[in-house]
């Protein structure tokens, strides 16, 4: 009962009158011949790791090995917003916290990758706090995200080296948008629409890390990708639909990734990595 496409996943959820996350969990249990409870326990454990990373990132003084990142989440946590407040600002703060902990060799969950590991916890934990969704619902939202990610990985790619940042932060944003809709008790159709809206707005995003490190621009890209997920979820929840169905958006993402030059796929040979400042940072780091 492998999930081949998101239209198939949606159909199944509508047929069974359940959430996307429930279909994903049951499909996984059937494929892996495991007890669903065991899978749920594992996901709940992962949720705990995510929560701990958020906590570290906003409370401790985090600094990466290179010194290029750290401290932004704590700063955001201790200050109040100018244009954004509440949920939106919190989602950015939490995303920053996790991705800064990642850059500082802390413990995180790759979701789907280490370089995009802030987006899902940022969105899910901030939305859950806002809507008072309990741990079980948060874990089920992660299964929803996983289902979106499975199809993206199977049809296109989840790797920056293969598909650019659209495959990492773009995918994470799409996964988080669907999770946010599910936590807000939207319909499965709205969840998939939200993922399509988020991924569409990440198409073409290149992977151009300065000095080849998972820091510039990855750290701040995580924060703003969380905001993108919330925006997409909000539109979808209000009934706005993506003109292009998610499965086709995924195919477009895969095709764009394949036509992306290798300089823009995690090699640090193009984009921001090759700006005068990007090159200066790299040469300073490598002199040491």
């Amino acid at each position: 009962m492998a999930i081949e496409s998101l239209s198939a996943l949606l159909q199944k959820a509508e047929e069974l009158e359940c959430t996307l996350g429930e279909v994903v969990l049951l499909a996984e249990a059937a494929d892996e011949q495991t007890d669903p409870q065991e899978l749920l326990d594992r996901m709940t454990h992962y949720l705990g790791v995510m929560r701990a990373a958020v906590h570290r990132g906003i409370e401790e003084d985090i600094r990466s090995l290179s010194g290029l990142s750290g401290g932004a989440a704590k700063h955001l946590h201790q200050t109040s917003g100018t244009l954004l407040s509440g949920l939106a600002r919190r989602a950015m703060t939490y995303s920053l916290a996790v991705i800064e902990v990642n850059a500082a060799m802390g413990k995180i969950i790759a979701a789907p990758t280490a370089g995009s590991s802030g987006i899902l916890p940022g969105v899910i934990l901030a939305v859950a706090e806002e809507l008072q969704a309990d741990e079980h619902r948060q874990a089920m939202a992660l299964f929803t995200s996983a289902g979106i990610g499975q199809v993206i990985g199977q049809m296109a790619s989840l790797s920056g080296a293969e598909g650019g940042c659209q495959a990492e932060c773009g995918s994470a944003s799409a996964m988080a948008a669907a999770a946010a809709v599910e936590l807000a008790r939207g319909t499965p159709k709205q969840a998939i629409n939200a993922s399509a809206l988020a991924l569409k707005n990440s198409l073409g995003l290149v992977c151009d890390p300065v000095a080849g490190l998972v820091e510039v621009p990855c750290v701040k890209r995580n924060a703003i990708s969380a905001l993108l997920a919330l925006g997409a979820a909000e539109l979808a929840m209000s009934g706005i639909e993506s003109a292009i169905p998610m499965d086709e958006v995924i195919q477009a993402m895969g095709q764009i990734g394949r036509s992306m030059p290798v300089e823009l796929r995690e090699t640090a040979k193009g984009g921001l990595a090759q700006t005068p400042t990007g090159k200066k940072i790299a040469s300073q780091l490598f002199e040491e």
Partner: protein
Amino acid sequence: MSTHRRLSVFDVIGPVMIGPSSSHTAGAARLGRLARELLGGQPESAVFTLYGSLASTYQGHGTDLALIGGVLGLATDDERIRDAKQLASEENLTYAFVPEHGSAGLVHPNMVRITLTKAKRKMEIVGASVGGGKVEVVELNGFPVSLRGEEHTIIVNSVDRPGVVTRLSALLSQHNVNIGNMAVSRAAKGQAVVMSIEIDSILEQHVLDQLGTIDGVERVTMLQKLR
């Protein structure tokens, strides 16, 4: 991580790992650990020759710490990876890093050669970090292999002589061991052979000992599945 095979939920969400990079940090720790298991315990010295993007960015990604941590037996989510150099000096492990910036013989963008010694024994692997924390050992003591640490695997060094494979598989089936996959590689006809045999369960020591007594078999190593 792109493939048209089915991805599991935990291929997408996971692994639990120490950052910053699944390929440069988590994968590196896993390769270090595989090397340790293949040596069979704690080495006295380790030399890491880094190729491709590992050579240029290993310090910023903590690849060096992850490799040492792995060789010391730490899992990819062990927070002591950050202090691996300190740990190495406490455990009397000496180490060296040799970045190779050429691309000759590079079959994958992220590769490392790990040479470990313990007493008089020397063991060398070439491994690739293939993405998402997944790895593949592609060479073991000069022999082409394909080891991922995802299945329990028996590694057998033997002479190249007819009948060795038959005797091995007969003994395994006698003990009810199910073989999932088997690969044989040799440098040249009539020379030494390395076999890797994936099995469903961990082999008991007495069965391993028995395998070692088979005519033509020189050495048997049990490589357990890494979690």
